[in-house]
């Protein structure tokens, strides 16, 4: 951005504000309370990802404190509060619990939008419920493409339409890009940057895990690499404890990299641990293994593990500096992999509510009005940058970051950042 222009703009805004203040005609009145639901897994294995995202969302709410009309009804304000719920049961995200949480949001007429869920499998349970009352949902992290679109090869089998009860209304948005992008970005990284030619794939057969594994396999083969197991190594994460025989098979086939489609809670770290001594090659996965629990589960074999995150590396973005500092002040810790996404997901909802307050003539907007304003979002400036939503509700900002786990520091190091057009 051209900074003199920006400064001039600020100066003008300041003048206008000063003018208004001087006139003393606009006194803001609080007309009620608007709640923003937050549904994420914040206990157990998923907490290391879910909690920082939840805190990002809470930060956006506490910073604003209230929401007023965007322009014509700037004097009509509503107090903002967070309504956070946990969709983990026994420490693992649970679609049934997610659905029950959304029922709670739906039943509370003050909830005009929700941030979440974290997991694609939970989203499949929640979207139909929220869609029936047109409640805006913005996920910080759902990357399964079938939630919003029907790719040309038809592999989603019309799921997006079914999830929306065959209606044309769309209430679901996301601020991260899809596995269609995450899987191929990981494949390109493994093939081009790591120089690996033979991949062995394992996946947990859940919506997210299988999807990202399929997209990885497709791109890895297109790049010129060999996918050693075309069945993509599906397993039942609640029943499988022993991966050693499968990994021995991978070693005998000459695998030089292993790709895992799934999360830490579905044995992502356990598999890495069991690779030790059997298959000592790099390990690549999606954002499902981005939480700290991976290091504990995979120790002492966590080194040489890479993961992609459908989103930018916040600390490398100038737009996120203020948010990072505020987060640290508020929670005493550094941001997590999804804090910026959580922050922007809530931020974009608040912006839409603000415009909807105008649409409602300064009164409490309806959920339909909020969703309609969400659909019109084209240039929201958040911590991640400026983005909008396409007709499916997918973000226009398609950034993938590659991280490498560093067991010595207990953190993941930035490895690479890819923006897909």
């Amino acid at each position, binding site marked *: 951005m051209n900074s003199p222009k920006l400064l001039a703009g600020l100066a003008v805004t300041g003048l206008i504000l000063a003018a208004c203040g001087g006139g003393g005609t606009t006194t803001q009145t609080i007309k009620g309370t608007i709640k923003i639901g937050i549904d994420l897994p914040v206990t*157990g*294995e998923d907490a290391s990802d879910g909690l920082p995202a939840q805190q990002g969302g809470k930060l956006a709410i506490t910073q604003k404190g209230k929401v007023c009309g965007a322009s014509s009804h700037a004097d009509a304000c509503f107090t903002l509060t967070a309504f956070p719920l946990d969709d983990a049961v026994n420490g693992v995200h649970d679609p049934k619990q997610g659905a029950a949480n959304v029922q709670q949001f739906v039943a509370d007429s003050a909830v005009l939008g929700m941030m979440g869920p974290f997991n694609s499998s939970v989203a499949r349970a929640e979207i139909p419920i929220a869609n029936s009352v047109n409640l805006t949902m913005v996920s910080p992290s759902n990357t399964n493409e079938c939630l919003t679109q029907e790719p040309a090869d038809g592999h989603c089998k019309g799921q997006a339409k079914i999830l929306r009860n065959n209606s044309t209304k769309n209430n679901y948005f996301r601020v991260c890009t899809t596995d269609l992008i995450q899987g191929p970005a990981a494949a390109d990284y493994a093939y081009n940057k790591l120089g690996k030619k033979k991949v062995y794939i394992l996946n947990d057969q859940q919506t997210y895990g299988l999807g990202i594994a399929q997209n990885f396999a497709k791109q890895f083969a297109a790049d010129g690499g060999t996918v050693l197991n*075309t*069945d993509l190594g*599906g397993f039942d994460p609640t*029943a499988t404890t022993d991966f050693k025989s*499968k990994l021995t098979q991978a070693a005998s086939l000459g695998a030089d990299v292993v790709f895992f489609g799934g999360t830490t809670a579905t044995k992502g*770290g356990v598999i890495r641990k069991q690779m030790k001594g059997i298959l000592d090659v790099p390990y690549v996965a999606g954002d499902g293994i981005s939480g700290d629990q991976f290091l*504990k589960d995979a120790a002492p074999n966590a080194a040489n593990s890479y993961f992609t995150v459908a989103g930018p590396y916040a600390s490398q973005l100038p737009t996120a500096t203020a948010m990072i500092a505020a987060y640290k002040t508020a929670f005493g810790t550094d941001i997590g992999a999804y804090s910026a996404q959580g922050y922007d997901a809530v931020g974009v909802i608040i912006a839409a509510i603000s415009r909807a307050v105008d649409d409602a003539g300064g009164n409490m907007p309806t959920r339909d009005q909020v969703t309609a304003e969400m659909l019109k979002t084209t240039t929201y400036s958040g911590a991640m940058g400026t983005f909008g939503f396409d007709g499916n509700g997918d973000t226009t900002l398609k950034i993938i970051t590659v991280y490498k786990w560093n067991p010595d520091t207990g953190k993941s190091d930035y490895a690479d950042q890819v923006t897909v057009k």
Partner: protein
Amino acid sequence: MKFFVDQLVLGLTNGAIYALIALGYTLVYGIIELINFAHGDVFTVGGIIGLTLIGIFRLEHLSPALLVPAVILLFAATMTITGFLGVAIERLAYRPLRNAPRLAPLITAVGVSFVLEGILFMVKGANQISYPNLLPSGKIGGGAFEIGITNLIIIIIALVLMVGLHQFIQRTRIGRAMRATAQDRDAARLMGIDINRTIAITFFIGSALAAAGGIIFGFYYQSIVFDQGFEAGLFAFTAAVFGGIGNVIGASLGGFVIGLILTFVAGYWSGGLQWASVVVFSILILTLVFRPTGLLGMRVAER
């Protein structure tokens, strides 16, 4: 060839763990005809108790010379503590129901399983818990027959425990009392055998063996999680049925067979990982339908 040997060793290692758990199912069933569904969770508790002792006595930092006696003591202490847990479960949950209809203790066993899992979840949380391997790692042998030392030791530990158990049951007075109680409880009582004590000892032994399995599991996979006993317990139960429930040698054999099947299915069949449970439980069903007494089982008189 190398691949086959690798899979064989992995299968036997898994089998050793399942066999140690299966022994507890079969001992208890043999003596009071109760399928103790809490047994899988006793296995997890044993692993956790072992981990706690390792932590308290800082066994990870012991010099190699002291490690052998330390590991033996670890097994002894863990097996004793877990054994008494088994006795307590029997005393509190099963003995009051000994003369109740057979469904009552079975349902209670399921309840005890949930109680144990719930306690483990509250105390240890839902995450995988890291477990140190105090057994030597590295490989022994050469060429196709290069096998992991950890695997070898695990199989040996399991075999030693199994042979010890067999000798105990066949040669000691208590063993004879156990066999007598299994055959006919009333007749055994008339002969002056303390039935309550004999049954308590049976639970002690079964739980102690499961605890050994729990430590071995921890050493081998280097992680443990609160609900692992559910699945492992069902696999071990299948092993006990397959070998002939009530039969100690049958349970050991069944454990190894189930371990080998699980491993070979995953190792040789490209989609095998997702079919492993299906194959194992199909075996359970087929055994129950076509040979309910199992491989080595003796026909139990209907009551």
